[in-house]
């Protein structure tokens, strides 16, 4: 391997890593606020790519019917819960949030099926379609057990991932997709060719990380989320509803997953089940950050991307093995360098 190849591999790795950054930030965000390790995150990324590809091919994306089905179930659960707790007056509002709003982008997609929309509109529509996905899953799957232990939530999360993969195959079919390039220019940085895609990915990752930083530090909602993450009971006493914070966290998570899906779609071939591996690698990044620190998570994710890129060059069949094996030293380092807080789990 000469320095030229190393530079290309690094560039490649940084681009992949940047995508992992977005997903890993979403993991940390959702975990901090809700204590849920949202394993299906990568699946949402993959579904985004598949949705965009369907729109490009003038097909009706499976996402539309998936969202419609989920919205129906969520609305039904919400109505039943409200009726039971005697909050019938809040039903119209619940229907608006859980049924009407998620169905709007789905309806638009139905209306424009078969029409070739311009690229920016396709991307916007994809984002709109994907956005309600994680909050709806939260309502259906996690809300009834919001107070359960982290481990139980994790088991449910893994089960949900398998359900989603199965649904992905049902709604999108087994074909892999790759969408059109978003940009089409390339340049040279210090003698290494760099594609526009790479720059776009890195730029977007930086941009959205910065937005997240602004959101958490300079908006009241962001601070409320931060407060929920630090201490749920305390936040509740201050009038912050953990459920609402959870929904916002999932909404933001959906957004991050959708953006990463749109960025990865033109550079990688995505299948209905590709999300798991993407998500897990981002996870390695999140674990490097201990599932708490946003900046360390970002650095860790870029590191994972670069490692993967070099591993793929050295020994392509074993690249996943190499990436996952670095978990051992990382976890050893974490377990011997950080003082553990007492974990009082359920009795």
């Amino acid at each position, binding site marked *: 391997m000469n320095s030229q190849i190393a530079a290309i591999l690094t560039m490649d790795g940084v681009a992949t890593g940047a995508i992992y950054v977005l997903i890993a930030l979403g993991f940390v965000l959702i975990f901090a606020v809700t204590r849920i*390790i949202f*394993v299906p995150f990568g699946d949402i990324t993959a579904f985004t790519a598949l949705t965009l590809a369907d729109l490009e091919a003038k097909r009706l994306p499976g996402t539309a019917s998936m969202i419609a089905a989920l919205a129906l179930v969520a609305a039904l659960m919400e109505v039943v819960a409200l009726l039971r707790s005697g909050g019938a007056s809040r039903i119209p509002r619940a229907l608006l949030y859980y049924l009407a709003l998620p169905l709007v982008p789905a309806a638009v997609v139905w209306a424009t099926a078969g029409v070739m929309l311009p690229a920016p509109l396709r991307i916007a529509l994809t984002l709109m379609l994907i956005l309600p996905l994680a909050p709806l899953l939260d309502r259906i*799957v996690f809300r*009834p*057990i919001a107070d*359960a232990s*982290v*481990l*139980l939530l*994790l*088991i*449910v999360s*893994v*089960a*949900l991932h*398998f*359900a989603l*993969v*199965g*649904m992905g*195959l*049902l709604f999108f079919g087994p074909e892999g997709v790759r969408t059109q390039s978003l940009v089409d220019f390339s340049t040279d940085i210090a003698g290494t060719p760099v594609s526009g895609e790479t720059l776009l990915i890195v730029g977007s990752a930086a941009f959205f990380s910065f937005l997240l930083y602004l959101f958490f530090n300079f908006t009241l909602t962001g601070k409320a989320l931060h407060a929920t993450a630090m201490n749920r009971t305390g936040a509740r006493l201050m009038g912050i509803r953990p459920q609402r914070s959870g929904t916002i966290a999932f909404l933001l998570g959906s957004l991050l997953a959708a953006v990463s899906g749109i960025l990865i779609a033109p550079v990688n071939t995505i299948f209905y089940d590709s999300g*798991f*591996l993407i998500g*897990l690698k981002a*996870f*390695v990044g999140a*674990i490097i950050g201990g*599932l708490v620190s946003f900046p360390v998570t970002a650095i860790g994710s870029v590191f994972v991307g670069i490692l993967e890129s070099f591993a793929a060059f050295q020994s392509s*069949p*074993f690249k*996943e*093995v190499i990436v*996952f*094996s670095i*978990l*051992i030293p990382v*976890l*050893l380092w*974490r*377990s*011997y360098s950080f003082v*553990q807080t*007492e*974990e*009082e*789990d*359920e*009795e």
Partner: protein
Amino acid sequence: MSARTNTLVAAAVVLALLAAPFYMAPFTITLMNYIGVYSFVALGLVLLTGIAGMVSFGQASFMGIAAYATAWASALMGFSPWLGLVLAVVVTCAVAAIVGLATLRLQGHFLSLSTIAWGLALYFTFGNIAGLGAYNGISSIPPVSIGAVPLVGSGQMFYLIWLALLASLVAARNLLDSRAGRAMRALRGGNALVESLGINALQVRLATFVIAALLAALSGWLYAHMSRFVSPTPFDVTMSIVFLMMALVGGQGYLLGAVVGAALITLLKNWIQDLLPLIAPSTSGQLEIVVFSALFIVFLQRARDGIVPYVAQWLPETRRERPPEAEPLPRRAQPDKGRGLMTVEAATRRFGGLIAVNEVGFEVRAREILALIGPNGAGKTTMFNLITGALRASGGRIVFADKDITRASACSIARAGIARTFQHVKLRPKMSLIDNVLLGAYSRTRSGFFAGAARLDRGEEKRARSEAMRQLDRVGLGSRPYDLAGNLPLGNQRLLEIARALAADPVLLVLDEPAAGLRRQEKLKLAELLRTLRAEGLTILLVEHDMDFVMGLVDRIVVMEFGCKLCEGTPEAVRADARVQEAYLGGVA
């Protein structure tokens, strides 16, 4: 129901099971074999998840490692499958030990997440090693032979699988009812209590993790020689979640739940596979996993406890005899009265900028009751935690029985002879009174995991039980030793904590607000008990708020305020001290 009826019912079930090949169709026997093989893994998960509170998504990969190890040894190298068994167990347990060492110090979800990643990594590894048949796997694995008889038919494998399973179930049951098993059961609910009992939590976690992997290894070995073919697919992460499902559906923490869960899930899977093509012919394969996952999620939302506990609540309770008297466990020699037992020199603890304990020093003399008092926020509990090792001192020195324990772990401090109770009672509510007290005797007994599983520990166990009963009697809780600790009222829970501490045969007993929440009568009884203990030669240090309780009971008092020592002396002297009066009542205007 008596123990005798229990044995009879169990014997009947086992007989009916062993006669199964004579009255069941071959297909049913094959199904039973799969249930049996899966039950091993589920049993490991019951121990790991239900008992010890750790979740692993990697059990299928442990099974895979074992299956590949024996396949390699027997099909590719031509060794006997029995050698394959040895290899399978050794390799699997070694991998589990490495994985465990890397993750078990971290919070639970790190272990779980890493097992997902390693499960995948392993899948790709098997799939890419040409020497192991890559994704095509290894076929023509020889059958297991007993003597000269090869076990080829499913009826023959049936006996191997189910006899091994029965043996594993019995061993697991024995284990849970032993010293090591109690330590495993105590893991759920946090480390603070476990370490304070002299139990090395990391070691017990690691052992439990390896035992679960060992059971998965047995399963993998049986699987390889039953299906005579291995490939990466049956050992992927999906299968791991199915195993977790089996363990949880059967009943968290119930050994039989493993078999019930494995049976139910295997049958359900079969049934769904038969049914779905009728409903949705083209998409049944994908629908299967969706239906399965959805069912599992609904189960976890609605009926987390599982089937066995639900059935068990309708069964009559088993009567259990009070453990018989036995020769007492060896006791420590108590130091002579008045000798210095523990010296605290300039102990300091900082939390960031806050100094919770600032250069506090005092001495505890043998066979006295010393009270540590002070207004709220004086740093009493922090001082207490420094002594018991729950917190590390930022400076200063603590010497106990001529041994420096300033930097020692809670576990080794407990073993040195300091037993403690907690301000917020820490018991294991789902364990019986006697089991809670037996946890206290952990550091006085020796039997390990193997001795527990093979019942080689009965002599020691009998003595420990007799000791636990003595301590229960002493605090007045000896009448119903098999009640659950969680059902006791708070006052009795505090007494139970003291009984547990006494079972450790401590030199120094440290009590954190033992009278808090007690009624007047209970306080009088507690004071009486502490006096008796002092008369027997025990040294007691207590942190307390209740002045009436302290003044009439203790020999000396150390007063703290704002992290510093205010004064020390006899109760009379402390009561007369102007500084103490000011600290408690405010200055005289």
